[in-house]
């Protein structure tokens, strides 16, 4: 990128880190301090917006003035230790929310003299102050004298973020006509209300819970799964891949859907090869957060057990001794034995909006562990995982 004849080179993070490491200790400390400040400001920004929303919502329910009244935004102060960036964000958010809610009867007006430092000299004294602290100066500068000033203060008190607001009438006695204190506990989820249509905190929480519960704790999965089996180390014929169609029921055991359990039944059919049925139970645990997300994919880990019963010419490999080619050809002409076995599996699943999921798992067949027809994709503590599966699931 070229600007005013100067090449601007994109600095990689590695180069930036090297530059910081070479800087004097004081500069590194200042840089680290700025980074920590930015992190803290990011963390409390949404909570600050929540408090401002609650403040304005209170004004829509109970306006401080009987009619639309000009008000000067005289000052917004942020927690000690943070800079003017968060202050500007809060000011802009307040202005936007008030603009969308004229029923508050607060009309923000611009008053440059209010925030400026003014000097007033008289026979008694020379006073240096902000204009908003000396209404006589505002009157001399042509103000109508009937305005009000709004002050906002945000402060971090332990784990709580506290917003204080007051309205002061700009007359010589500067009476405070209205004041309120609101606090937000750290860790409480931000309500994220729409700035152009504020609702009460209770209504916002109800919407949040409805979004969490979504379709309720019970859903019906429809799944397409494929299981493949590892090649044996010695002579033997592995089973063919199995394609399963599964459906059942899944239950979210917690409101945040961090734990779910499912019970499904499946059917597999390949003409002239095999048929199979299975019953499978699983437990899922959310590992990508504390609760299900509405804006990003969720990652679940799961473990489960299945009972599979299969029959057909191609199922001869499910036995505890190696199959040779002659036996395989002989079985092709017959119905083939019916074999039932149990399996244990564990894997990972990515879910998109709790509607679509993709998973992969490894499965061990304990009763066929010594079968010469199955190898192992991986061995964990001596346990062979002979089957690898992948699935696509839709929830209804």
């Amino acid at each position, binding site marked *: 990128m070229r600007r005013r004849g100067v090449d601007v080179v994109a600095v990689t993070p590695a180069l930036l880190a090297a530059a910081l490491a070479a800087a004097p200790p004081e500069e590194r400390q200042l840089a680290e301090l700025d980074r920590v400040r930015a992190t*803290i400001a990011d963390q409390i920004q949404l909570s600050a917006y929540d408090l401002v929303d609650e403040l304005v919502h209170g004004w829509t329910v109970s306006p401080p003035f009987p009619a639309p009244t000009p008000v000067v935004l005289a000052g917004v102060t942020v927690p000690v230790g943070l800079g003017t960036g968060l202050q500007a964000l809060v000011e802009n958010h307040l202005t936007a929310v008030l603009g969308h809610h004229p029923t508050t009867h607060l009309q923000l007006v611009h008053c440059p003299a209010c925030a400026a430092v003014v000097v007033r000299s008289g026979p008694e004294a020379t006073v240096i102050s902000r204009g908003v*602290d000396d209404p006589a100066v505002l009157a001399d500068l042509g103000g109508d004298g009937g305005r009000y000033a709004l002050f906002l203060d945000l402060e971090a*008190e332990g784990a709580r*973020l506290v917003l204080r607001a007051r309205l002061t009438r700009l007359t010589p006695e500067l*009476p405070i006509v209205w004041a309120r204190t609101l606090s937000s506990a750290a860790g409480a989820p931000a309500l994220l209300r729409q700035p152009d249509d504020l609702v009460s905190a209770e209504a916002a929480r109800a919407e949040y819970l409805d979004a*969490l519960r979504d379709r309720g704790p019970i859903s019906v999965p429809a799944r397409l799964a494929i299981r493949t089996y590892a090649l044996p180390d010695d002579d033997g014929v592995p089973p063919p891949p199995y394609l399963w169609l599964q459906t059942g029921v899944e239950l979210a055991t917690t*409101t945040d859907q961090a734990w779910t359990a499912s019970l499904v039944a499946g059917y597999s059919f390949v003409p002239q090869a095999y048929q199979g049925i299975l019953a499978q139970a699983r437990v899922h645990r959310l590992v990508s957060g504390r*609760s299900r997300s509405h804006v990003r994919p969720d990652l679940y880990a799961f473990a489960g057990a299945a009972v599979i019963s299969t029959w057909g010419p191609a199922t001869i490999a499910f036995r505890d001794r190696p199959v040779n080619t002659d036996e395989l050809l002989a079985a092709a002409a017959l119905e083939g034995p019916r074999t039932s076995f149990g399996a244990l599996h564990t894997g990972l699943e990515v879910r998109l909006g709790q509607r679509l999921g993709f998973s992969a798992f490894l499965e061990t067949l304990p009763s066929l562990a010594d079968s010469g027809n199955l190898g192992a994709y991986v061995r964990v503590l001596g346990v062979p995982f002979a089957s690898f599966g992948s699935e696509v699931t839709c929830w209804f």
Partner: protein
Amino acid sequence: MTLWLLAAPLAAADPMPGLVRSRDALRRLDCERLSAWDAADRYPGRVPRPEGREVDPDRTYVVCADRLFAPGFRDPGAEAALWGMSDTAASAAAAARATGLARIWHVEVFHASSPVAAKLGFAVKAALVAEGLAVSDRAPRLGPDDLDVLLRLEPLRAYPAACARWAATGGLSGEDALLGVVQLDRRATALQVGVCADGGWTWLR
């Protein structure tokens, strides 16, 4: 931001120091005890609402959350004053109300840190309004000569002298009272509260 919810008496997620959690981690926490209803309101989806079931009146939740500012980020004196600012303001306002003075209240905070003083002043004014008292944003002024003398006095004599000067110069009239929140010693975290009315200073706390 780490958050633990501990349903007393079940210690499912105990934040106390132990094998995997240090004392420093505990110092970064701010804990409070909530009823089951308050916890369900504040943390929907994480704490089930006690509805449709028999409510156990003894069931409470201890909610521990990381402090917004880690220890050491801000000056320790300022952090101590700001952490308890709501309680300080509420107690000062309650003390003012207890005087029974039907005046227009002004607030002055004397603290080593100017930003902290401004914050405390804001909090005390809001608390006074919440107590139903009439409050003014006007700051009574003193001339430079008066300030020069007062700054040379020890604190316990300076505030009564300032109160007398306010009355003498018209900074405070018979309809006004001033609530002073004072840090007598720069090293102290506790704040004293006094009232200036009719030219006389009274320590409330």
